[in-house]
């Protein structure tokens, strides 16, 4: 993670240098894909932009969420029908109360097979879950809709988090994932 960060900074410096030496060729030629890979993109531009974009512009608003009282059976069915790996869990007021992902379900299904040291008290209680509220992780990583894309990316890279729930006043507004960020940056590059 540390190496990655220093790589990015050196990459940015390099960009800055090339920009200063080159004449302001800001818009890259779309057809010259090969060349784009060799000559790094304009850094100043990307970092400026990422600080200007806020999470609410990037997040997916049409996420699939799950009710607190949803049965595990239904969640499994939902998982087979949708392409997501994790699902926000909301209470009747639309407030985010947790998140449930494939790992939770797998741990539940294979609880009996798991190693003895997984047979803890808490896991046993979870294994008896019939609905989302008892199985879910109660402390999902959240981010403010007004946070910048840079902040979201920092969180994801630093703490190995795949997706963040976007929450304002406890209400779930959307989900932002690594692929949302990549998509946005890709779009910006044209």
């Amino acid at each position, binding site marked *: 993670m540390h190496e990655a960060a220093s790589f990015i900074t050196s990459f940015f410096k390099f960009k800055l240098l090339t920009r200063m030496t080159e004449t302001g060729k800001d818009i890259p030629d779309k057809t010259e894909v090969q060349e784009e890979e060799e000559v790094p993109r304009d850094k100043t531009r990307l970092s400026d932009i990422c600080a200007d974009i806020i999470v609410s512009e990037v997040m997916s608003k049409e996420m699939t969420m799950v009710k607190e009282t949803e049965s595990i059976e239904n969640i499994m069915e939902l998982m087979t029908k949708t392409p997501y790996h994790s699902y926000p869990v909301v209470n009747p007021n639309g407030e985010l109360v947790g998140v449930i992902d494939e790992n939770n379900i797998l741990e539940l299904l294979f609880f009996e097979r798991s190693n003895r040291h997984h047979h803890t008290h808490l896991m046993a*209680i979870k294994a008896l879950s019939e609905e989302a509220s008892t199985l879910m992780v109660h402390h*999902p990583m959240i981010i403010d809709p007004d946070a910048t894309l840079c902040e979201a990316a920092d969180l994801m890279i630093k703490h190995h988090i795949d997706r963040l729930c976007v929450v304002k006043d406890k209400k779930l507004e959307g989900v932002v994932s690594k692929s949302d960020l990549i998509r946005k940056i890709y779009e910006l590059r044209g």
Partner: protein
Amino acid sequence: MEAILQIMVVLLLARILSEVSERAGLPGITGEIAAGFLFALAFRPDNIETFTFMGELGAIFLLFTAGYREVHVKDLKAASINALIPTFFQIFFAFTFGFMLGNMYGFSFLESLFMAVAFSPTSISVVVKTLIDTDYLSSKPGSLMLTSAIFDDIIGLFLLTVVISVVTFQHLPSVIDLLRIGGNIMAFAIVMAIMGWKVFPALFGQIQKMHTKEALFSFVILIALFCAYMAEAFGLHAVIGAFFGGVLISDLPIAKIEAVQKKVSGIAYGFFTPLFFAFIGLSVEIEILYTASTFAVLVIVLALTGKLIGGFIGTKLVGYSSKDSLIFGIGMMPRAGVELVVIAIGKELGIISNELFSAIVLMVIVSIIVSPILLEMSIRYKERGLKVPEQPTV
């Protein structure tokens, strides 16, 4: 140099023996205790200062991780009133049996009290495997066991808190002393509540932006040590603070991200807690057990039957059948983590004799081995009854 060699040998032994006991179908902790015991037998180390210190840290980490990873404040709220009566009875009986035994043998008030506290908690995880294998996890007594065990550690730690506070007086505390103890506990609780409510969330908000290597992990550990220290400052024991520190950050998203949890679990279960259990094993003196065998047997019998009888009566009172009540009572018998921490503290404070310490360690090991077997037998006994059609379960 000596210290490094000791830690290395003990950790290695603990890992190997823990593996052996896992393969034999027992929890790893029995192997870890055995490792310390064998180490003491084989090497007769005379300077164990570093090892002792590591063991103390191990107790802190054991309870910190218990709070951090295993306790769910929301489960506590959800636990039904129904579970309260059986829980009260099983703890009350175990506690009373411990205290009575102490009185019978003419122990001091404090030593009897410590024994009573050491009798009180249950380590339910020892029998979870049995419940799974017999498909009884989701049965009525099975889920009651799980609910009841939620309170167990907390009540055990609360009792420990009170007892340790009483210890500082060396005599039966007067009303003013009791008020002062209550005040201390309250003050500690208030400070911790403010920390958990405002300070820690704000702190972690900043920590997540830090650039220093492993800042987040460091601060999780720092919280454990800070809360442990705070508890001592209020006249309680470090382990109690560590436990509540863990509980306080257990619902903080940033402190609980997978990557950090794995590191905490690694340093706790991979290094410190095996050393704690080994330290327990090392402190057992087998010679004493020979001379006090009747006493050791009584400790084992009363500790186990206290839970059994209390659990049975309590469950009967809330309307369970006799067989289900029996299953519940047996399920409450295993002891492992907190009880060992209790006696380690008692020994450290010089209240518990070596005789009592060794007897309780033996009790823990016996309970770990015996409870799953008895539980399975009681479940089979119930199943056999069920095969006869229309057999009324009274």
